[in-house]
């Protein structure tokens, strides 16, 4: 039987010894080979991207209390792919120094939501999540409020630290 071929009882016979040590060698080589394979599979999967402050633009002319979608160019570094892409954020200006900056990504499943001023709500077209101006969930499958982003002002210029968060869970966890 096949098991006799590999799994020899402790034996003093030369062949038994050869079987054992051969299996041991094969096992060791396989084990060592597994190391780079696992390394390659993990790769950079758990490496957080460095977030950078991005210059989003001048906010002096934004209306008060109304969400405005602001687009800005952002230098991305996705492994070995480097590009300048356009990102956007929703900015609500409360006063000249007080803002709320929302990530444009719906915390439900990652779609981009829109502001519906007639209903005074953010609504996501994908699965119908509804959020208040404050980001609070008003309806739909969203598991948490809209994600705010860190921001700072430098003489009316808004800088935002572009971050993304895991979607679909109640906690706001950076990705």
């Amino acid at each position, binding site marked *: 039987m096949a098991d006799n071929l590999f799994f020899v009882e402790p034996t003093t016979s030369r062949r038994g010894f050869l079987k054992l040590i051969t299996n041991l060698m094969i096992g060791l080589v396989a084990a060592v080979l597994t190391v780079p394979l696992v390394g390659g599979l993990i790769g950079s*999967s758990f*490496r957080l*991207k460095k977030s950078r402050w991005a210059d989003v633009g*001048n906010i002096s002319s934004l209306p008060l209390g109304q969400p405005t979608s602001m687009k800005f160019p952002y230098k991305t570094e*996705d492994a070995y*792919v480097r590009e300048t892409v356009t990102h956007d954020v929703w900015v609500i200006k409360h006063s000249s120094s007080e803002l709320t900056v929302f990530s444009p990504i719906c915390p439900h499943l990652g779609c981009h939501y829109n502001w519906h001023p007639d209903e005074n709500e953010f609504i996501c*077209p994908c699965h119908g999540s509804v959020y208040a101006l404050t980001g609070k969930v008003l309806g*739909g499958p969203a*598991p948490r409020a809209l994600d705010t982003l860190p921001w700072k002002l430098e003489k009316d210029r808004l800088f935002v630290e572009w971050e993304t968060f895991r979607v679909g869970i109640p906690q706001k966890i950076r990705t």
Partner: protein
Amino acid sequence: MLSKILKWINERWPLTTVIRWSLEEEMPGGTSYAYIFGSCVLIVFLFQVITGVWQLLYFVPTTDRGYESLNYLRTEIPFGWLIHGLHYWGASAMIILVGLHLSQVYIWGAYKNPRQLTWLIGVGNLLLTLALGFTGPILPWDERGYWEAEVAVSSAGTAPFLGTVARNLLAGGTALGQMTVSRFFFLHVAILPGILMAFVILHLVAFRKFGISGPWDEAKRKLTGLFWPDQVFKDGVAVTLIFMALIGLSAYRPPLYSGPLDVLETFYVPKPEWYFLFFYQTLKAFHGVFEPIGTIGIPLLITLLLIFLPFYDRSPERNPGRRVTAMVCYAIFVTWVITMAILGYYSKPEASTSGAPVATEATQAVSSSAGDPTLQNLEGAKRGGQLVASLGCTACHRVNGQGGVIGPEFTSALLKGKSRQWLITQIRNPKAHFPNSIMPAFISATDQQVNDIVDFLLATAQGKSVAAGRLAKGPSAPPVPAGLPQKTTPTPSVAPGPHGPPQEASFAIGNVELGATIFHQSCESCHGAQGKGKVPNPGSADGTVPPLNPIDPTLFNKNAQTFVNDIDPYIQHGSIPEGPNPVLHMLSFGDSESLTQQMIANVEAYVLHLNGVNRAQITRPGLEPRTFFWLVVVVFGFVLGGFWVWKGRRREKINR
């Protein structure tokens, strides 16, 4: 000679033994068209391997070139449309055939002792086939691919305990990107087909150990047929028909061009391939904490039920008539899958951005009519009057009898009762008042400019006449609709006609449906519904905005790429129509970034569609797809039919 060579080979390599092993099989109960599915799956899988490998000649798995490289294969390579079409529709065929094969095995009770192992390996094949069907459409990283990856990765993330780990490993990072594409490529091109090939061999060896189970009726089992040629003939008929169907589908139903990826675009509604629609629809029932039950629990449960089927259903009874529970379960399952798939197919997203075009202006006006307009500065109003012209307001709004008719005329009646703040908001963020307004947000104007315009409007409201500036002619700044506040590239001078070369958008094959949505939002107000035109443009030579459907014959071209190259500069850079004083200008949607290049590509696909030109036109088909299909049908018909007739005659002659 041939037999001598065969003999020489057989003395050195067991060729005949291998052929005999694969072909010489007695089939208890005779051959049947019920048994074709296994062979068909095998052959279609072979097609998939070949067409898949061939696509590597053109397709590259990168985020920036995946879609374009696939489209190059599909439109520029002789029979590239067929290579991709066969692979795309082959996937569907394979899933259908695996389903039918599984159903046949289930109904015939062929999974029962001693064929448990064959069944187990078969379940593995089903899972591998589904995994291949899922990972494939992701690879081009177009709109469809990206959103399917997003759903896959998010679903993995809902797994308890290991959610984050599974999610990140699948995405190859904390966010979707190049690593995700490479991972799905790795799975779809190497790992999954490799395992499936091994499993197919295991499955065949296991199958050959006991052969087919045959009819459950012991009496019928006495008849025996031969696998070769009796069953292979039936298999061959089926494969031939499937092959022709795949060519026909490739010709008449080419795979969708979902459009280049634009994560900012909110119009695309991600839906999976038809074979996962039932699951997509089912998932909608699971929200919040119950989500993992849908995303992980249901697939896991079905898999476990399938795997352990031969172990909990151990009765040797194979006659379906006496296996009522099994048949009822089957019927319920199939009904569920089909119902959900149909519901999923027809389901609309739960909320839509394309609402009614008429806004509730009245409700908004009330809240802002209380403002007391005070004229701060007549000088400001004068400057504002100039700005109204130079910033392009008169392209849409009529002021002092001059200007466009898209927006309302600036009359004192219109403006009366509007507060300064309301007007500032209207200029800065028109959608705040009218969500479906097509008026661009003048974010890039300075506060001083906006104040001046508001002064002018307030003066107009009070009936004071402040002359609006005349639109500067010739090389003046074009109206820039939306503003990236930080964008400071100098706006090029604009003379009549479009300016500058076609941009990136002109190379990408857009999605007609997405284009229609964007057209409706951004273009329809000037070019009319479905581009049929007839929107007046006073001061232009034509008197109306040029219609796009049909388009100016000098721009039209039967060649899609030339056509796009003709119209792209207008959309990118805008243009001023000829004429003494045209009120409406074509806006520079590209330069101003009010539409992304991907959106423009979609709009262009739609405009071409309106003019009867397919943006995804195949420029080098080898043979026209439909011609090729009918050629194949005719050739197959003549050769096989002719042979049949000729053989029949010969047989008659001899028998006579």
